[in-house]
């Protein structure tokens, strides 16, 4: 019998309902897997064994009573450590929040608990979600289950590694510039950023408020749909939340791509993309065309400036969002001669170098006399990008590109060169700026045996067509391979 930890969510949900397996058994299998892999991967910052055990027992009791709380009931789920969890340490991988126990659950967490999910614990990330490798974590780097000498991507690297390794069945991350999709691509799993406003940000510790979005990391498109169904939908506690419930995504998953127009974004394909990655993307495009889709080549000229605009807007917002970490009310406090010195000492010691760099960048970009040239200009570029996307979606139902220009890179390879690290997100950032949904689906391996992600982007609230195309890509790619560290034989 195969290891329960390797089941897809869909298969596990079926087994739970037929009585073939219990949530407690599932949790035990996942815990066993974590016990084998954590020493190598360090996907988790906190494993809440007691809380998870209670939730699993509760889920089983629910099934026995005939209560069906939805697709995540009894499913072991991991949360990125920037999602606040009541009474469970939430650090954002920062020293400044060491030991911080939030007094409340975020909306996504509340919905997961209400849906009977078994919350395993909190996964590692780049400090405050700023990074593309988890190397910016104050608590150690997570490793890629395909090659422990390489990064899992980031910032949701812990969530991606856990799902790829089987130490979580599904996980949640946050995506500000690609932080779900890029690690999903590097770890050979599915990662999805919903339309901005589809999932409530209440309880997500903000990095860049106008870009942040919670989304699922999963082993299949269908699993990602199930996870999104549970956390998505209107939340009055988030003003930027879309009114209305999550629509039906499932009915289109088997529809195929016949008759759909798939746009290849010139600016996000070819130049700067590793040949093996581009080759896998091109192979997928051929398959899609053979499956009945029309492939159109499209240009989004403003996308050339997306990275520059992003690195002004995101730091500007973060400079304000992270101002609250001052040692006055919670988290780290380092005393000084007066209150200014206390705040200064606390922040200097509490924040790592990348976070400090972005706060400084953002503070500068918003300063009197520079605002228009930097933040103002970046917002104008953002408007152009939104217009370019809108125009493109008149000619194509979805747009596609590689998710990441490269496969997983060795640990330490980019830490001394922030710009090369920033380039990891060149294909994913545009959808954050436009607020549109996008998903990464694994489509193959490079010569080193490292997974390659294929990105499908759709217009705002275009999740149905995005999932429809992603499901077809998944079928065509028949990726099927599991990370070496996800095998139960590996110790």
């Amino acid at each position, binding site marked *: 019998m195969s290891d329960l930890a390797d089941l897809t969510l869909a298969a596990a949900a079926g087994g739970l309902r037929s009585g073939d397996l219990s949530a407690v058994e599932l949790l035990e299998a996942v815990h066993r897997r974590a016990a084998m892999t954590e020493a190598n991967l360090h996907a988790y910052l906190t494993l809440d064994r007691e809380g998870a055990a209670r939730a699993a027992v509760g889920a089983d009791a629910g099934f026995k009573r005939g209560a069906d709380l939805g697709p995540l009931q009894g499913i072991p789920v991991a949360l990125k450590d920037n999602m*606040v969890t009541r009474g469970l340490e939430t650090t*954002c991988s920062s020293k400044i*929040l060491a030991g911080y126990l939030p007094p409340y659950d975020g909306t996504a967490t509340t919905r997961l608990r209400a849906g009977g999910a078994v919350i395993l614990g909190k996964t590692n990330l780049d400090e405050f979600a700023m990074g593309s490798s988890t190397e910016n974590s104050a608590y150690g780097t997570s490793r890629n289950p395909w090659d422990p000498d390489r990064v899992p991507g980031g910032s949701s690297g812990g969530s991606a590694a856990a799902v790829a390794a089987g130490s979580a069945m599904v996980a949640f991350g946050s995506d500000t510039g690609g932080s779900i999709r890029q690690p999903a691509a590097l770890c050979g799993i599915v990662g999805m950023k919903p339309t901005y406003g589809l999932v409530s940000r*209440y309880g*997500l510790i903000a990095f860049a*408020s106008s870009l942040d979005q919670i989304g699922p990391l999963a082993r299949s498109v269908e699993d990602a749909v199930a996870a999104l169904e549970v956390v998505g939908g209107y939340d009055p506690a988030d003003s930027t939340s879309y009114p209305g419930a999550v629509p039906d995504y499932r009915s289109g998953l088997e529809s195929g791509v016949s008759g759909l127009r798939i746009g290849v974004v010139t600016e996000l394909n070819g130049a700067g993309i590793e040949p093996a990655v581009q080759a896998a993307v091109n192979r997928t495009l051929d398959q899609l065309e053979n499956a009945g889709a029309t492939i159109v080549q499209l240009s989004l000229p403003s996308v050339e400036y997306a990275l520059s605009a992003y690195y002004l807007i995101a730091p500007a917002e973060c*400079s304000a969002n992270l101002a*609250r970490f001052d040692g006055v009310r919670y988290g780290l406090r380092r005393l000084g001669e007066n*209150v200014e010195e206390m705040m200064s000492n606390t922040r200097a010691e509490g924040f790592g170098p990348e976070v400090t760099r972005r706060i400084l960048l953002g503070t500068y970009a918003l300063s009197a006399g520079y605002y228009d040239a930097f933040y103002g200009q970046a917002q104008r570029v953002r408007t152009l990008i939104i217009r370019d996307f809108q125009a493109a979606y008149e000619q194509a139902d979805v747009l596609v590109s590689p998710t990441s220009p490269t496969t997983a890179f060795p640990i330490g390879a980019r830490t001394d060169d922030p710009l090369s690290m920033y380039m990891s997100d060149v294909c994913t950032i545009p959808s954050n700026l436009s607020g549109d949904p996008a998903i990464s689906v694994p489509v193959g391996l490079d010569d080193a045996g490292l997974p390659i992600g294929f990105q499908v982007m759709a217009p705002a609230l275009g999740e149905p067509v995005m999932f429809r195309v992603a499901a077809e890509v998944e079928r065509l790619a028949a990726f099927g391979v599991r990370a070496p560290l996800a095998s139960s034989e590996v110790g």
Partner: protein
Amino acid sequence: MGYEPVIGIETHVELTTNSKMFCGCPADFGAPPNTNTCPVCLGLPGALPVVNGTAVEYAMIIGLGLNCEVAPRSIFARKNYFYPDMPKNYQISQYDQPLCVNGHLDVETGAGTHRIGITRVHMEEDTGKSTHVGEGGRIQAASHSLIDFNRAGVPLMEIVSEPDIRSAEQARAFVTELRAAVLRLGVSDAKLEEGSMRFDGNISLRLEGSEAFGTKVEVKNMNSIRSLQRALEYEIERQTALLEAGEPVVQETRHWDEEAGTTSGMRSKEEAFDYRYFPEPDLVPVAVDHQWRARVADSLPELPAQARGRYIEMGLDGPVATVISRDIEYGSVFEAAVAAGGDPQTVANWLTGEVTALVRRTDLSLAAGPIDGASLAELSAMVSDGRLSASAAKDVLAGVAAGEGPPAAVAEQRDLIQVSDTAALEPVVDEVLAANTDAIQKLRDGDDKVIGFLIGQVMRATGGKADPGAVTELIRSKAG
């Protein structure tokens, strides 16, 4: 040539909404420290603001009351600066796209009516409150500080005037009128002592006749309307002295010291904060459609200036009408008294005279107290039909205020009813005339002054209760 002050006032008003600006916590004053708090107003990681619709409506009420245009779309911004009682280390405040713009308020002073422009009315959130323990309560020398976040997130309005004010006296009249308007509009309790209304002044001087502005100084920390006036008077003197000595006025923020009666420099222009405003990404724009605006505009209460106009039409003189129209309690008691048949000017005179003195002397609350429209109307009737003298009426008023009962009962009890019945007065008059034959002769000889003496004798004999009119008539008929 003299210098002309150019003054603009920024007024902060806390709104009396049930809940805070961006969360559901109670916005009331006086709860135990840090009990009216939640993740949002404590600025906990992950928490998000949601705009309080009632606060928007209240701000709109103020804006419309001040003749402003209401923007169909306005936005919030983040104002960034570090301060321990500000939980997020930024304040959510409207900045370049406020809710209300381009209004005005007409202000009366002895010199006439002045129209003061209102640049904008915008919404923001209040901060928490720090208590610095030790060394006189100043942060620099405190051993430690305590923070109460109950006030953090309470809805605040900032009302910014144009630099249209030309004297400290006008500034006092402006804030007095503004406070009256805010109270009338029912959106704030505008208590200066509790800080639910506070103001900063911007003041510069220029040569009379000049159009250009001089260098501006911002003055903070005035806790009363009187201290605002004093601070501005002090600044006018200080800046005049500088200019006359040929020295420059430095652009800075100055702190008013109430006890010393002086201002001192807090922050120079170079040290001014760079607030790094940018649009608040956690909030969508505030949209006010035509229907909402129209509904609020249609339900606006009468403003002091309108009430004043109406009172003058009812026959009140200007100064008394101003005083009564500015106070919502006086206004409602006055109107009730007139509606019950009281004479407007008589009632108004009592309100601004005796009643005001009583209120000051005895901590009387007009709203809850026994002096109401009905009692003033009754008192007015007793004076006009001769049952009470003007001076006895004041005694009766004091009795009513002291809870002795309605005016008629008080007058009876205190034995203040005038005797105007001729039959009752005649024997007394006869007695007085019999004892003062010289005086009668003088009166008959045309010395009219002596009648005052005779009336006084009758009043003394009746213990002051005789109606002087009736007594005069009796003396004349008997002497003549």
